[in-house]
């Protein structure tokens, strides 16, 4: 797999399995949601194996709960390792958040307080997960709607320091930066500029829902112009980082997502021309 082959990808969704298999080569990679394939067999694993034959795949989880005070879920890690052995993903990502405690899962990406205590806690767990998986973990910034009074650091300071302490990589979700910047009234550009260039492994793009007083990360709309603008800045700062579009609700026809991916391609090409000039 050469680096140039992995530039623009999409989320792997069941609605598009057949078209993807029937028309290979229209994107360069897919991101598969890990938990959807932690099943004994059947259609999900059939399609995952089938599409893996034609494409590189990254695994993207939602339940690692790296920030939880619960013990790490050993069974989940076993299942993730088994899936990774099957798929041989380019990388494995999850979210910088917690998803529950006391053995429960709320199936949401709950933000962490940005404190030294949380930083120590998460860094130690990231190292243990990385040892277990035998690879560097890629962690994504989440959209958040509340600000902890206890936070001592900015989100970008927290992420950059976590990367340094735990030696993990970053999945930079451009829409999440935009959503959180709007909700918490911080400078999205400052967030981007604070990311350590060598650790930014992947970009996410997605749509959201504006509720007037706040924005919710819903993945059910096309990407808005302001997020494309922020993406252009991200491409300037972190050239060559693979980009993918997430769509999880109101999933449009495959062609529509391919057209949206062409917009990302166009922006990246335009930025590359600017930089070259």
């Amino acid at each position, binding site marked *: 797999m050469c680096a140039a082959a992995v530039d623009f990808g999409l989320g792997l969704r069941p609605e598009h399995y057949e078209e993807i298999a029937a028309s290979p080569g229209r994107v360069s990679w897919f991101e598969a949601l890990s*938990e*959807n394939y932690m099943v*004994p067999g059947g259609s999900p694993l059939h399609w995952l194996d089938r599409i893996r034959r034609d494409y590189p795949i990254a695994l993207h989880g939602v339940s690692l709960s790296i920030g939880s005070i619960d013990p790490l879920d050993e069974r989940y890690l076993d299942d993730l390792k088994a899936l990774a052995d099957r798929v041989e993903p380019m990388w494995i990502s999850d979210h910088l958040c917690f998803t529950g405690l006391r053995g429960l899962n709320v199936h949401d990406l*709950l933000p962490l*307080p940005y404190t030294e205590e949380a930083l120590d806690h998460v860094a130690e767990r990231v190292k243990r997960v990385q040892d277990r998986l035998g690879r560097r973990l890629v962690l994504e910034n989440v959209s958040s709607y509340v*600000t902890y009074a206890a936070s001592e650091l900015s989100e970008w300071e927290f992420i950059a320091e976590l990367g340094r302490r735990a030696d993990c990589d970053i999945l930079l979700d451009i829409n999440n930066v935009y959503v959180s910047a709007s909700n918490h009234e911080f400078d999205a550009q400052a967030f981007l500029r604070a990311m350590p260039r060598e650790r930014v492994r992947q970009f996410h793009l997605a749509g959201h829902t504006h509720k007037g007083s*706040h924005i919710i990360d819903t993945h059910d709309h096309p990407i808005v112009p302001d997020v494309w603008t922020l993406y252009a800045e991200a491409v300037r700062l972190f050239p060559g980082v693979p980009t993918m579009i997430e769509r999880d609700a109101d999933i449009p026809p495959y062609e529509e997502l391919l057209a949206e991916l062409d917009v990302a391609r166009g922006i990246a090409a335009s930025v590359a021309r600017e930089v070259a000039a």
Partner: protein
Amino acid sequence: MSGTNTGSLGDLQRAFQDYLFRSSDAFQAAVRDTKKADRVTLLDVYRDGYALRLIEVLTNDYPGLMAMAGPADFDHVARAYIAAHPSRHPSVRWFGRDLADFMARTAPYDKAPAAVEMVRFEWTLGETFDAADVAPIAADVLLALPPDAWETLTFTALPSLHRRTFAFEVAQAWQRRDEVEPGNLEVDRADEPVTWAIWRPERVSSFRSLDTDEAAMLEALVAGRSFPELCETVAAFTGDDQAPARAAWLLRTWVEGGMIAGFSSRAAAG
């Protein structure tokens, strides 16, 4: 939030989760208003989202129940289930697993046995969907066995094969789930309880009703009984003369239908 560790990571996480579960509002004190929104509005993104996300999972898992109950009653039972059964699995795939049992033992849902059976049917379909992949055997392998092998021949069913007995015609109604407005799906009581086989021969799930003798013989097969014992099971329904032919015919039907994963025989093995 109280005590000396207020504001610590553990306290904050416990308070956050308690807020989602509506068992405490103390977490409101741990977060800030913004210039545009008060903290309760912002926290409700999480609190409302928690229930809505899981209701959506149940809606996807149980379209037949939605067709029977309609959105309002579905929402009612879903919220009651969410409150009683918080998710314990990393994947939402398994969240709805206990819904049938919950409804069967919880008023007022226990007064709707057809709905409970619909939920059990739909969950079983889901279980077959991503059950372990095992290729069914072909009939010609059995036909090639020497006669004495049949004396000790036993079978294993596909991992996806389930048998469920329903007093209501839920499988028939489920096939009409998209033809009616939600809330209008009628489910008739069957003349007598019927056992159904639900399985996945390859990638697409199948289901069909079983005759009484067929259900008994399939139960014996799954229990590991030998072919002569399967014939005895059938004989209780057909009489001794008809039993071997009927058992052989049923076995062939199952093999051709992709229900049987393997067989073994002391004679064949030896």
